């Protein structure tokens, strides 16, 4: 190895092309060695690198105590690690202040928090909440619940045949009754990357705040919430190679300060008497109870891991895989890719003529190829394309062209078996 090269160069684009990252993930490394596992389900949840596992292990082994409470040194160590992770999320999203980052269980909890504390106080009967037809159920159902409760109306930006948002319709859908626009940055079922800066600009022209579901975006592309100017940005740690049960919400401080608390409990108060309580400043007032300390620390380690490789390298590499995948899968007769936007993350959602996705999934599993089949928690997308389900191969930092070739070979075998 050339000692002159920096760590970043060593772990850059060429490192990814050679499948170098696979060795960082013990489950994949061992399963690949034993049974040739091809893991193509990172959009559901990504595998974990050793550095994340180690960070969690180290915390519990030698750094653990409850945070924000103890005067003893160990508690201060844990507090610094937890708050340090908040700083890592801040830098990762390009937020101005670390206090603008609230830790949650994941994107789903983040969206529910915002529905409750940000949107609910702004909404009356007849007001409108605008989402899109490509949302994950977690960015649909909280708004349906809120509409049922308040009498507000849920509207959506429709899809095009390529699986893009029909943005021409956006200006007319943003009315003087629209109280919020909630939109995904990247679609989990289609892979489409939405033109977020433009969407935010159009919404802000009508004074409509924008909540972004970034769960599928952060593992694939660099995010700068200040450049995007979005009001909130929500993501999950586990899709970003971090632990489950932790995620974060970025919000502009002016919004956090104006929002009522969500859950009550310890750590979110300044003082409590039997009559009333006064609340801590954001972000503490939105983090009631002992948080997922190890999760946050693990997420911080995951962000360090991704940063070491570089999100720009990752995006460039995944674009290569996307182009190769389109070509390789294009050679499988009867295969139709659902979601053909020119701006996509490395996600291949597809149907195979004459074979249902569940049958495809079971056959691929017998070849140790792990894919997701079903509606991907995005039934409105399936309805739009008039299909019951798709097979989805979603790629991560550890996948290579060889994985796509294995997928195509598996699909050809399936066609032969089903004689289609």
């Amino acid at each position: 190895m050339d000692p002159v090269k920096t760590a970043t160069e060593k772990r850059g684009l060429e490192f990814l092309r050679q499948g170098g990252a696979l060795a960082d993930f013990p489950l994949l490394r061992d399963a690949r060695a034993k049974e040739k596992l091809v893991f193509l389900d990172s959009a559901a949840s990504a595998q974990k690198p050793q550095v994340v596992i180690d960070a969690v292990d180290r915390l519990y082994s030698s750094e653990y105590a409850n945070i924000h409470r103890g005067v003893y040194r160990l508690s201060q160590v844990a507090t610094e690690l937890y708050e340090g992770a908040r700083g890592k999320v801040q830098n990762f999203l390009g937020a101005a202040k670390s206090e603008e980052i609230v830790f949650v269980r994941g994107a789903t909890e983040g969206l529910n928090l915002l529905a409750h504390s940000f949107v609910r106080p702004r909404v009356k009967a007849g007001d409108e909440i605008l989402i899109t037809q490509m949302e994950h159920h977690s960015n649909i159902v909280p708004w349906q619940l809120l509409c049922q409760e308040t009498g507000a109306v849920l509207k959506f930006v429709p899809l095009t045949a390529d699986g893009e948002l029909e943005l021409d319709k956006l200006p007319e859908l943003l009315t003087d009754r629209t109280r919020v626009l909630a939109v995904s940055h990247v679609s989990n079922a289609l892979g489409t990357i939405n033109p977020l800066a433009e969407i935010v600009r159009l919404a802000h022209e009508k004074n409509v705040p924008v909540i972004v579901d970034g769960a599928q975006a952060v593992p694939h592309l660099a995010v700068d919430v200040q450049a995007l100017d979005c009001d909130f940005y929500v993501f999950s740690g586990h899709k970003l190679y971090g632990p489950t049960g932790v995620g974060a919400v970025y919000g502009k401080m002016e919004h956090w300060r104006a929002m009522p608390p969500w859950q009550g409990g310890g750590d979110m108060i300044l003082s409590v008497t039997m009559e009333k309580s006064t609340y801590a400043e954001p972000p503490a007032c939105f983090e009631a109870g002992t948080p997922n300390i190890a999760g946050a620390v693990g997420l911080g380690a995951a962000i360090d891991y991704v940063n070491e490789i570089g999100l720009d390298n990752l995006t460039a590499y995944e674009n290569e895989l996307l182009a190769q995948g389109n070509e390789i899968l294009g050679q499988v007769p009867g295969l139709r890719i659902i979601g053909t936007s020119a701006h996509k993350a490395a996600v291949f959602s597809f149907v195979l003529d004459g074979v249902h996705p569940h049958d495809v999934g079971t056959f691929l599993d017998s070849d140790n190829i792990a894919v997701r089949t079903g509606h991907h928690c995005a039934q409105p997308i399936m309805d739009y394309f008039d299909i019951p389900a798709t097979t989805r191969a979603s790629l991560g930092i550890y996948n290579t062209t060889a994985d796509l070739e294995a997928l195509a070979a598996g699909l050809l075998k399936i066609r032969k078996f089903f004689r289609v």
Partner: protein
Amino acid sequence: MSDLRELYQELVLDHGQKPRNNRPIHDCDHEKGCTHREGYNPLCGDKLTLYVKSDGETLDDLCFEGSGCAIFTASSSMLTEALKGKSIAEVREIMDEFIGMLTSGEKVADPEGLGKLAVFGGVKDFPARVKCATLPWRALESILASRENAEGTADGAINSNEDQTG
């Protein structure tokens, strides 16, 4: 793919690709002895409407509409073929044996008693697919239960998600 050949036997492939009794009963009305039940597998999107026509003694007609995988389609198709013309008591016996074969921890004493339906025995080795095979049977179970219960004749929806882990 030796294990998969157990799962996707010729009979399953045939019924999966060319399902029998794959039609609705229009004007399915309780007054005329017809009950229908919708079934869903919410996790995978399998959808089914099962129609059963009975004089109270035997099942005179069974048919289904739906969309799903080969296992689900074949199970629905073979259910309608196997049970048409059978008495309700016979249907119950076959139904309990079929569901037991796929969901109980014990081996079914006499899977051959199921006739052609024993072909689904292999599904048990694929826990994620058990619910595909049981969906039409759970819909039938629900129809029989509602017919037994005078007040429970309302057409509703069921799902076989609890069968997921086999």
